[in-house]
């Protein structure tokens, strides 16, 4: 057993009387990667916020190098060389890379409050070089990709010489290549004797990356041990407290011959070219592609949130006359967007209200379009039951109070209110935990069983292989392959994803796969 | 519970409103309990008169002096004055007068924002049966019965400008060159400003033979705007020979523009610009004494105040509810030519005398 850097002893924390953590004790050794897993609400974030100084524990204490460690705020934690990289990056997009790295402790000239820019950029350059970020230190953050921004956060941890670095769900918005790079950097950090606390829902990453794992459930540690002592099943068992037979629900849908959707030669200069794709009644069709391959853009075009230059869209055999969202909805298309907080929900409003918005115009009176509140409420209650949305009274609890999985169900539910026949689902399980994922998969499966055509966009190959009947693969704005269920194979799909443009060196260089 | 409580409150409020708005029963039939002592009191004790004074604003010395003249005279007579400042909002003034009517004042004097609002406000006073007086700005028609004491901006401005044109003619005859006039126009939303501008233009049209095209400088009655625009105008037109300004309060601004250009000179100096403005405040008085300013259009503020107050008190005494009388303040132009006889009739000079400056 290595040397303990950080030890948490009997930490408890309650919010307004509700226990978030009770008597949690964990330790972090020097030079190890400690994985922390658990469902949403298990207390992972609370625990890390306590370590990072954002929250203070109600009871229990922490030891850093065997000295009492009581951070009152982020700055205290930073001063003790503990860095916390949040899931939602904490960067100011209107400032430069260097400024973000030194935001709290600018290098000054002779202690007068005048920033020594040359020194700052030099130090920043060193820090970002160490994490493999290649851009001038005076680049604005808004010009960087998500992955690059994450590297800036790590560089920040570097520059403060952090000994313990906490990563909270770092890969949710990273491309595969960026993820790979992140893992390499984490490996390097470990080599240098830094300790890493790594929180993730992606259990395969945890397995690959960590030395030791702590499993949390309902504010308690339910399991702890070396990574090799766990397998995925035992991790899930400890997380949800029961066995989960399958990660994916059983497929029962029947694919008919009727084409619900057909895209013919859809082209928009610079975005997508010559897209041909179709989906049958009762079919779940996956669309896989690298980050930036144009999958989300294609879905936006299909749904009418963006225009296209040539080609045609047929829905149930009928040509789509006007390419607008309104028209799509009219013809029975639903779009569950990838960013549910920003594009899917009205966080401040109630679940009922969120469920009612899509159907509202349909259920309104023809004259002056008055809303029929009782009909909407009945329908919403039915949907909420059908999807098993866990919330308080739907007319009272705000959408923001729900867990990620339930929020996703609300987003799907609001579309169900109009009983659409074609579903576009973009990254349906991003940032939600294992149990909730299964439920979302089941919902998708059931939709297909009821005869809908479902287009699922995802960057997780396994997920698509688990729930789809057919997978299209996109690369650089084109469809490069289509794989049927019997041919599902990681390698094949990836090969298509790297594109037939592989002869182009640039293309392969820039290609990035998300796992 | 909360909801119920607020609904109850609302119902109560509206009940109060509706009962309050309902036509009042005849006092004889059902005298309100609190009305009895008041009614009994009235004949016994000499009731203190209450007069409401609603003015549009106190932004310049002119209005301050007018306000002071009225308020102090009333107070000296033992009359209670209720003041309202409308901040240049005619509608607000109407609301304030209605407030005053609600307080059952004995008389209402206003300095209206403009003639049209004076009519509307007057009609409100008439129907409430409260004597109504208008000070300084005439109502635009006689629909409302009112005591009116006013001067005509166009006429008095023209009077001052006539003197300036005379001076300009002298210059023209001496040099043979046409004089370039400049006019500083006030806020275009203010009828006084427009009237004064009109007075200038009337005289200008009559004397086109000695004037070149005139320069307009918008001031919006704002010192900073006036400063910036006058500077620009003076830089663009270096040969301005006559300056007419809508109000005396801008003299400090004019001075700070002309002085660095070497054009702030006394009469007689070859660089002197023939200058005149409207109001007749202390600054103007001083500048005329010193010989910088040629003419000032004066509204006889104190005279107007006296006219309106006597009229009002007479009416109240007689028990007239809607007195009607039009009292003209002829106004005059104080010029360098008539300084001897007219000087002390200008209210600015009277103020200076009070202060011991004269």
């Amino acid at each position, binding site marked *: 057993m290595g040397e303990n850097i950080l030890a948490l002893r009997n930490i408890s924390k309650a919010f307004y009387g509700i226990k978030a953590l009770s008597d949690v004790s964990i330790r972090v050794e020097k030079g190890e990667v400690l994985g922390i897993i658990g469902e949403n609400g298990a207390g992972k974030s609370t625990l890390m916020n306590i370590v990072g100084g954002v929250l203070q524990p109600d009871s229990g204490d922490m030891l850093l190098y065997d000295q009492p460690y009581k951070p009152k*705020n982020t700055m205290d934690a*930073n001063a003790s060389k503990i860095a916390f990289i949040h899931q939602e990056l904490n960067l100011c997009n209107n400032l430069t890379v260097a400024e973000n790295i030194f935001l709290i402790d600018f290098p000054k000239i002779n202690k007068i409050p*005048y920033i020594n820019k040359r020194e700052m950029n030099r130090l920043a350059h060193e820090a970002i070089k160490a994490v493999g970020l290649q851009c001038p230190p005076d680049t604005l953050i808004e010009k960087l990709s998500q992955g690059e921004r994450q590297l800036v956060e790590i560089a920040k941890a570097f520059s403060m010489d952090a000994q313990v670095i906490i990563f909270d769900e770092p890969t949710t918005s990273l491309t595969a290549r960026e993820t790979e790079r992140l893992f390499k950097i984490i490996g390097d950090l470990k080599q240098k004797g830094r300790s890493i606390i790594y929180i993730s829902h992606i259990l395969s990453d945890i397995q690959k990356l960590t030395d030791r794992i702590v499993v949390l459930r309902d504010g308690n540690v339910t399991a702890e041990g070396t990574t090799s002592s766990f397998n995925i099943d035992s991790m899930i068992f400890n997380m949800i407290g029961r066995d989960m037979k399958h990660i994916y629900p059983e497929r029962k849908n029947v694919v008919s011959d009727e084409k619900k959707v057909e895209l013919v030669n859809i082209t928009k200069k610079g975005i997508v070219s010559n897209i041909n794709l179709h989906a049958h009644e009762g079919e779940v069709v996956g669309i896989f592609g690298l980050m930036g391959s144009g999958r989300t853009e294609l879905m936006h075009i299909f749904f009418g949130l963006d225009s296209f230059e040539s080609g045609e869209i047929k829905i149930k055999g009928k040509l789509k006359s006007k390419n607008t969202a309104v028209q799509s909805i009219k013809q029975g298309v639903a779009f569950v967007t990838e960013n549910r907080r920003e594009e899917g929900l009205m966080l401040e409003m109630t679940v009922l209200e969120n469920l009612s918005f899509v159907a509202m115009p349909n259920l309104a009176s023809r004259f002056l379009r008055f809303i029929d509140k009782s009909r909407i409420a009945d329908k919403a209650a039915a949907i909420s039951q059908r999807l098993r949305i866990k919330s308080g009274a739907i007319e009272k609890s705000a959408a923001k109070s729900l867990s990620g999985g339930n929020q996703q169900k609300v987003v799907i539910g609001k579309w169900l209110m109009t009983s659409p026949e074609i579903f576009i689902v973009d990254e349906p399980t991003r940032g939600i935990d294992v149990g909730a994922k299964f439920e979302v998969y089941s919902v998708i499966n059931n939709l297909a069983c009821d005869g809908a055509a479902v287009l699922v966009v995802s960057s997780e190959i396994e997920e698509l292989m688990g729930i789809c009947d057919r997978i299209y693969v996109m690369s650089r704005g084109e469809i490069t392959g289509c794989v049927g269920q019997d041919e599902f194979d990681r390698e094949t799909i990836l090969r298509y994803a790297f594109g037939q443009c592989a002869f182009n060196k640039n293309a392969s260089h820039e290609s990035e796969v998300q796992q | 519970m909360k909801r119920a409580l607020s609904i109850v409150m609302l119902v109560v409020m509206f009940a109060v409103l509706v009962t309050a708005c309902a036509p009042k029963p005849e006092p004889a039939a059902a005298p309100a309990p609190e009305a009895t002592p008041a009614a009994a009191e009235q004949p016994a004790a000499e009731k203190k008169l209450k007069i409401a004074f609603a003015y549009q604003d106190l932004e310049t010395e002119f209005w301050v002096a007018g306000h002071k003249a009225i308020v102090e005279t009333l107070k000296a007579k033992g009359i209670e004055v209720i003041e309202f400042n409308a901040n240049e909002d005619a509608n607000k003034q109407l609301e304030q007068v209605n407030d005053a009517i609600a307080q059952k004042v004995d008389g209402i004097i206003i300095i209206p924002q403009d003639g049209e609002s004076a009519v509307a406000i007057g009609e409100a006073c008439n129907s409430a049966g409260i004597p109504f007086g208008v000070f300084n700005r005439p109502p635009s028609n006689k629909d409302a019965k009112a005591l009116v004491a006013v001067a005509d901006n166009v006429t008095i401005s023209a009077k001052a400008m006539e003197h300036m044109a005379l001076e300009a003619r002298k210059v023209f005859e001496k040099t043979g060159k046409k004089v370039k006039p400049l006019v500083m126009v006030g806020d275009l939303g203010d009828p006084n400003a427009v009237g004064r501008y009109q007075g200038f233009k009337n005289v200008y049209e009559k004397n086109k033979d000695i004037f070149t095209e005139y320069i307009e400088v918008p001031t919006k009655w704002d*010192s900073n705007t006036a400063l910036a625009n006058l500077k*620009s105008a003076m830089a663009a037109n270096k040969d301005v020979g006559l300056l007419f300004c809508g109000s005396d309060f801008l003299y400090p601004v004019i001075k700070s523009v002309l002085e660095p250009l070497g054009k702030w000179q006394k009469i007689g100096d070859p660089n002197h610009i023939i200058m005149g403005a409207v109001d007749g405040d202390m600054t103007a008085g001083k500048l005329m004494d010193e010989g910088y300013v040629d003419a000032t259009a004066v509204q006889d503020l104190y005279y107007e105040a006296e006219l309106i107050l006597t009229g009002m008190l007479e009416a109240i005494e007689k028990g007239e509810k809607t007195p009607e009388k039009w009292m003209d303040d002829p106004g005059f132009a104080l010029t360098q030519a008539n300084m001897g006889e007219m000087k002390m009739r200008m209210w600015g000079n009277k103020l200076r005398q009070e202060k011991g400056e004269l």
Partner: protein
Amino acid sequence: MNNNNKANMSAFALKLLKNIPLLLFILVFVVFGLITPVFFEWDNIENILTSSSYIGIVAIGMTLVLLTGGIDLSVGSLMFLSASSAGLLIRNFGFPIWLAIVSAIVIGLLVGAFHAFCINKLKLVPFIVTLSTLVALKGLTLMLTKSVAVEWPSAITGMASRRLLGFIPLPVFIFIVIIILVQLMLKSTPLGRHIYAVGYNSEVAAKAGIDHIKIIAVVYILCSVLAAIGGIISVTQLGIVNAGYGEGEEFKAIAAAVLGGTSLSGGVGSVFPGVVIGTLLIQVVQAGLVYLQVDIYMQPIITAGIILLAILLDSLRTMLEKRLERRNITKSCE
């Protein structure tokens, strides 16, 4: 190839549009100058600079507040208060001029501190807080002055026409000093960078360890102090403070700041060239219309039109920028 050309052209258009306030400023200036050549004379340029100085100083303060996503509607009333109280202190209490000016600035500081208190501690919306002080400060000043104009000693009005280095009028000099100081503060001090950080997202800034409460306080205090200074600078030119003084200056300052590219939602904006150009643009238009002797009824209509054009072009820039930012996905190799 065709595609490339197009991309280049939009990049060029973007570059042009990025400097819209500056370009528009130059355009307007040149057009006016071509019509009336006297417009190019130093006298006029000096006039424009002097007239811009006070509102420019106020607009700089406003920019600081806007950078944090707030707003200060009270600057006009505060100018009135500071200028009047300094004048009264000199005239009625025999304060030396410097002390009176310092007192006026202290008054600004107190008002700013009051704003900061209400916004930080009472958690009130800046719009409402400063709206209330807009009304209250005006009342306070009228109470102090009894609505009578306050005259400043001529020694001060003389100051305005004093030239430094033989050609820079004092107000312009102070304006330039403030531009340099605030520019340095914003670009090169931790405080300045923190203002941008808080403006981008105060939660992010707080998580990163910035004391955003302090930043908000500093910004409102600075804005009020600059408004007080602006008030004094303006009176050194006017020599007198009337009761209507300062009305509507808040909108002038906001317009100048926004014309200079400052965003009302915070985090974006600059003092130089930004606000400075914004202020000068408005003054140049105002002066030009007087030079050209445009019908006085038409002048405000034209001014509004030019401002509309400026913000319209700025919006087009943002839209174009967004479009160009979208990555080219399809292969360009074919």
